[in-house]
């Protein structure tokens, strides 16, 4: 068995919001481990607290209890710049209007390494080109970012995260807005990247069937608990029928997807 190195870990932390003295817990007893070179999916119904968990794991907000460890160090003890060299993100929100070309957008990922003016050294340019090659979009380098398709833009944003050269990449619902073909191609790319580069990738998604087929591990958030395991073991635990409490759908293990109850 190969040695497993944990990049990020959280041991039974509580997540939620603090508003003055008022504390709103979203989930308790959450344990997450992200291993080097693994692709992990985060699934759960809308409003269950996926975003809160992602925000906590990426150090944007502090856990109510416990701590998130990144490379063996508490994530909140990193300076902004040091954290930017360990962790990069890909968001769903639309980009503000700008004239950025695909290359320029990807190159912004080099910011944690460039000088105060952000001037690119040779190494930065090489890394940017390398990142674009990894997502196979180097032919679009000179296009403006608004001239390419949604699927391509999502890949460019991943290239930007790759250029940031971090051991961990966190993606917030990268497959939203894409059709099935592009969803598959994107997840395959993520899988490939973890294998080739040894990076650890965590992404949230609503595409349970795809996530089960392509991820090394899946974190399932239900209203009762948060469970992380391999897809095969999660199937055995019959966890997916606890995802949605509504009786109108059920998970069909033979088909590997949700089926709508007639009537």
């Amino acid at each position, binding site marked *: 068995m190969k040695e497993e190195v944990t990049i990020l870990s959280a041991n039974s932390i509580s997540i939620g919001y603090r508003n003055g003295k008022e504390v709103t817990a979203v989930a308790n007893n959450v344990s997450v481990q992200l291993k080097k070179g693994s692709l992990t999916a985060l699934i759960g119904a809308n409003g269950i607290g996926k975003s809160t968990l992602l925000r906590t794991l*990426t150090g*944007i907000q502090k856990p109510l209890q416990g701590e998130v460890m990144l490379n063996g160090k508490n994530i909140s003890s990193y300076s*902004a*710049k*040091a*954290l*930017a*060299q360990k*962790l*990069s*993100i890909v*968001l769903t*929100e639309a*980009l*503000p*209007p*700008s*004239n*950025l070309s695909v290359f*320029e*957008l990807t190159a*912004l*990922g080099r*910011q*944690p390494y*460039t000088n*105060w*003016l*952000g*001037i690119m050294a040779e190494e930065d340019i090489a890394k940017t080109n390398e990142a674009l090659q990894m997502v196979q979009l180097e032919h679009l380098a000179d296009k*403006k970012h*608004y*001239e390419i398709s949604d699927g391509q833009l999502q890949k460019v944003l991943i290239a*930007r995260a790759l250029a*940031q050269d971090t051991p961990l990449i966190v993606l917030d619902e990268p497959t939203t807005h894409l059709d099935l073909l592009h969803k598959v191609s994107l997840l395959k790319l993520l899988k490939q990247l973890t294998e080739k580069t040894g990076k650890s990738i965590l992404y949230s998604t609503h595409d349970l069937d795809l996530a089960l087929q392509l991820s090394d591990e899946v974190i399932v958030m239900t209203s009762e608990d948060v469970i992380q395991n391999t897809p095969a073991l999660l199937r055995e635990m019959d966890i997916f029928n606890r995802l949605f409490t509504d009786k109108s759908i059920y998970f069909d293990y033979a088909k590997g997807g949700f089926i709508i109850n007639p009537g």
Partner: protein
Amino acid sequence: MILFGVLTAALVLLFVLNLSLGSVNIPFNDVVNTLSGKGAGKATWEFIILNYRLPKAITAVLAGMGLSLSGLLMQTLFRNPLAGPYVLGLSSGASLGVAFVILGAGFLPIIVKDFFLSSYGTVAASMLGSFLVLLAVLAVAARLRDTMAILIVGLMFGSFTSAIVGVLTYFSTAQQLQKFTFWAMGSLGSLSWENIAILAVACTIGILLAATCIKPLNALLLGERYAKSMGINFGRARFIIILATSILAGSVTAFAGPVAFIGLAVPHMAKLAFRTSNHIVLFWATLLSGAIVLLVCDIVTQLPGSDLTLPINAVTSIVGAPVVIWLLLRKRNKSYS
């Protein structure tokens, strides 16, 4: 690079042209000779250039640079192509500051009054006014992500300011009122060399502060969350950007009055000409284009060959207002804006 060369050449040419044109046309050679210290063909020409046109041309260059750069900073900070010192109400805020000083000076104790009525006091009040409005706009922008809402807030500040100014006029003397009215019409001329020195220092500080934010500004092209994830200290960067903007817009408005639309239109001209969003390029491009555009506008206000002078605001609005409408129409097709 070629474009930068062309712009620099255009700037120098327009600067000399600006000195040469006016109600009295002074030949190009005499302008150059005066500037190089050789003296012009007529003593009056030399007097006109050194005491009237040169200060005005320098003011145009400084004001053009300051307003345009503050527009660029705001467009990136607010992720809003329609932001600018005039549209967002910064000029109104500066006006309010100046109005309090000029019209409200009667309420102040004598010792403080002297300071506030000096150029320094006007500049300080003006910068403070734009700084406060900027903070208010920022607070609103944090709650409303909507582009148009922010602009409407800017408009409201404009109305609010004119209302307060209206109230103040009731309590002020005719002389104070006249002074304020002339200021509010906007004018690049009538600055003493001492005033120009103050303006130059303020603009330099603002420009240098802005230069330290070039990298964060580029990161902000992807939005606040990405910028933070790339190691940018967003809080500090935003503070410096706001400070630089207030200094630039406030000092220019204090001396030249509220000059409309330059801050909004020029960054777009620079973005269009250079086809980039990289702020290292846009920084210089905006500074150069700002100076050029305001020099051209100033030449137009002189209506060369005639004795008439138009208010600078009228000319910049005629150029700028259509730009805003054009930008709004362009926003519809998602692309570059």
